[in-house]
């Protein structure tokens, strides 16, 4: 096989992988984007929500035995959904106990609209969750062990005799689930009453209050839903990515990058931003050593912030 064909195969394989990874990153970002666009809160602890989702899915799959009960395929999806539901509860409780004190009408009109207390509070939350996770779960890495994570579908031969592409089965399953969930979230926001309430609260919290909307309740729902989406995406990722309690910090910057790239305030943008970040990360493999994968993401993140802070798809120009 010629060098050119090997390169072509590598590029095509990377494109395919980046699509699968990008889908999950997109969903991770939708969780953070949901919280930001509705509440204007930058949640530092979103990476830890993902981490908790991963452990919740692991617990559901092995501990509750969903894997044995439903079979590998359904079990994985059910475990991720379980993680989503669990994280909804966690998110709603955290909002009621902590976040509500530094968000919403309490901080409207204060210095910087309360962004700094929110960032600091969620930073504290992130430290507690990551280190608390270390105490509870230990530091050794886990994955949800299935046959799927090591098996792949073979596509090809595509060009000539030699070019084959591989589709990892666990990642493919995660990707398909991601797409279904993302579409469901989009339909929910567009067509349901609660979706309208969320959009109203996001657009103008004060005006929404005057229209009889309980903004605090809408915020709690949004925070729960955002936590659930990221937790669910984490649950899906857990099937192919080894994780430990400190995994959140690696991913929180990925999520920030995706949300900023998509334009802060746009949930749809957050999804596509995440897809682009997955793409950048995988394609950087072609030219950079794998240790520098995350550095590539940070550099893209910084470049986007510096050159186009309203994001690639964003319409908000407000960045004061």
């Amino acid at each position, binding site marked *: 096989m010629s060098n050119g064909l090997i390169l072509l195969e590598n590029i095509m394989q990377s494109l395919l992988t980046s699509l699968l990874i990008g889908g999950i990153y997109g969903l991770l970002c939708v969780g953070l984007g949901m919280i930001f666009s509705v509440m204007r809160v930058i949640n530092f602890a979103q990476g830890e929500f993902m981490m908790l989702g991963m452990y919740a899915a692991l617990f559901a799959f092995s501990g509750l035995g969903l894997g044995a009960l439903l079979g590998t395929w359904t079990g994985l999806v059910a475990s991720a959904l379980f993680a989503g539901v669990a994280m909804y509860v966690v998110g709603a409780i955290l909002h009621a106990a902590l976040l509500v004190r530094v968000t919403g009408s309490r901080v409207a009109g204060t210095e910087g609209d309360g962004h700094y207390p929110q960032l*600091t509070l969620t930073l504290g939350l992130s*430290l507690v969750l990551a*280190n608390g996770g270390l105490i509870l779960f230990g530091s050794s890495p886990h994955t949800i062990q299935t046959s799927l994570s090591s098996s792949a579908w073979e596509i090809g031969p595509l060009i000539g005799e030699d070019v084959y592409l591989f589709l990892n089965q666990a990642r493919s399953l995660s990707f398909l689930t991601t797409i279904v969930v993302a579409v469901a979230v989009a339909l929910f926001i567009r067509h349901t009453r609660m979706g309208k309430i969320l959009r109203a609260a996001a657009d103008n919290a004060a005006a929404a209050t005057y229209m009889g909307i309980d903004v605090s309740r809408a915020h709690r729902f949004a925070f729960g839903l955002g936590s659930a989406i990221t937790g669910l995406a984490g649950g899906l990722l857990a099937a192919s990515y080894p994780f430990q309690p400190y995994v959140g*910090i690696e991913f929180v910057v990925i999520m920030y990058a995706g949300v900023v790239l998509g334009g802060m305030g746009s949930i749809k943008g957050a999804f596509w931003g995440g897809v682009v970040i997955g793409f950048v990360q995988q394609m950087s493999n072609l030219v950079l050593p794998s240790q520098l*994968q995350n550095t590539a993401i940070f550099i893209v993140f910084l470049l986007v912030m*510096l050159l186009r802070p309203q994001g690639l798809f964003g319409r908000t120009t407000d960045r*004061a």
Partner: protein
Amino acid sequence: MRRPTSIQGGVARSVLLLLGCTALYLLAAALTSNSYFLLIMTLVPIWATVGVSWNIFSGYSGLLSFGHAAFFGIGAYTVAVLFAQYGISPWLGIPLAGVAGGAAGLLIGLPTFRLRGVYFSLAMLAYPLAMLYVFEWLGLQEIALPLMRENPAAYMQFQDYRIYIALAVALLLTALAINLAIARSRFGLTLLAIKQNELAAEAAGIDPFRWKLRALVISGAFAGVAGGLYAVVLVVVTPHSVFGMLVSAQALIFTMFGGVGWIAGPVVGALVLLPLGELFTATLGASLPGIQGVIYGCAIILVVLMAPEGVMPWLASRMGGKIAPMPSASSPSTAMHAAPAAPGPLPAFGPAGDDLLVVRGLSRRFGGLQAVQDVTFTVRRHEILGIIGPNGAGKTTMFNLLNGIIEPSSGSVMFEGRELTGLRPWQVCRLGVGRTFQVVRAFSRLTVLENVKIGALTSEPNSALAQQRALDALALTGMSAQADALAANLPAVQLRLMEVARALASRPRLLLLDEVLAGLGKAEVDRVFQVLVDIKNAGITIVIIEHTMHAMVRLADRLLVLDQGKVLYVGQPEAVTSDPTVIEAYLGKKWARHVEN
């Protein structure tokens, strides 16, 4: 931030308190022999220094840095790499770590200060994390400082751990002294002004970018030195231990715990939290790894919820001022003792009547809206030019074009023969054009005198002379009696006059006043009127925007009427009321016909 009236005495007391605490601390170290306790006692001043470094930048500029690990890590690696790979002693390496940290501050600040608020914070987060992976990739996962058996002291290696404690305490004291010097100088006052109202600071002649950059360089240098000493004390450097999230978080948490903007804040935070975290790690660390992070996390959550300003201000308010606060900013006011001078020496003037400001074809478009179109007029030296026009006529937009807040789409603005378009507001201010804002932009947590002094400092770097200028400006506006009042507590008319005084203090030759009379009662209007006449008599040219024609006819030498971004009329105030186009703009076509008939 508490601001006691007798700051001089407060500072002397605080310095004594600090020296006393230092002596006690060193005494305690001398009496300790347990090596684990001694290590903790070394780490406390090192982390307190990182906190002070963070405070010098974030406490003053108001920009929260989530990335101070970048400077700390670079300092640590500078010392470790120089020593382990090139045999250079930490005695030289640690100062170089400071240089490296300062350089990192410069390189990071240059691009990142384009971002505001939380966007800046998020970007700062990315730097140390990116460096972490780069250092791993470079093969620097773990660098151990070699043990020198011969002449260890030349390589900062001591049998007696207490020498490290003395070094760390000396570093902390240096950082505190620098912090105090900044707080009591123009530097601190300027940074506070930027923090409280960046646009107003810029209009008062301050270049925010340059000052923030200076603060970040100093801050980065101290974090770098602290990182270097940390490397020497711990002997082994890994990317995670010096670039990790916990490093940035500790700097922020210790400072916020003690009190942001309080000089002693980070010291208190480190003194309480670090031993607490270590104590739990020592006793429970084996069964509960990560307990330290949980404690720091809980501490910062509690602080945000219960004492958002930090523990020190909280305690100070509880104990009714028994704790001597060390406010970061202080500029001792001598307002009451200085003679309220008559309008001070003023800049040289050209002959009356020549053209001071020449505006030609000035236009600005916002999307489809032509906010200002093809505006041409001149301002003559020593006159008061009134600009009137209905809501949305483009009056404030034109001021923003004149002083550089927004750039014109086309046209030129010549001030004393110099082109102003393309300049930043602070540059325009320094050339001699002062302005006030339609909605007063005060530095609300500073006193009236400090507010005005900030205006003076841009053209008079000497603090005492700037103070005198500020007092002169206050005298000219009749605000001398309020010099020591907090801006936040002023009624509307005094706030307006303070802003006028702030603009005057920069010794402008042209003053742009945006609706200084709006919302004032009749007596107040008369008071401001008199001030404006005095300013004019002192030789300063005024362009004033007003909503109501009534007031303008009395005050202005000439009037310019704007409507829908265009000049309707320029000329004598008496004639304007009979100009049909002006009447039409104000009262509608029907009235215009009525007047004609």
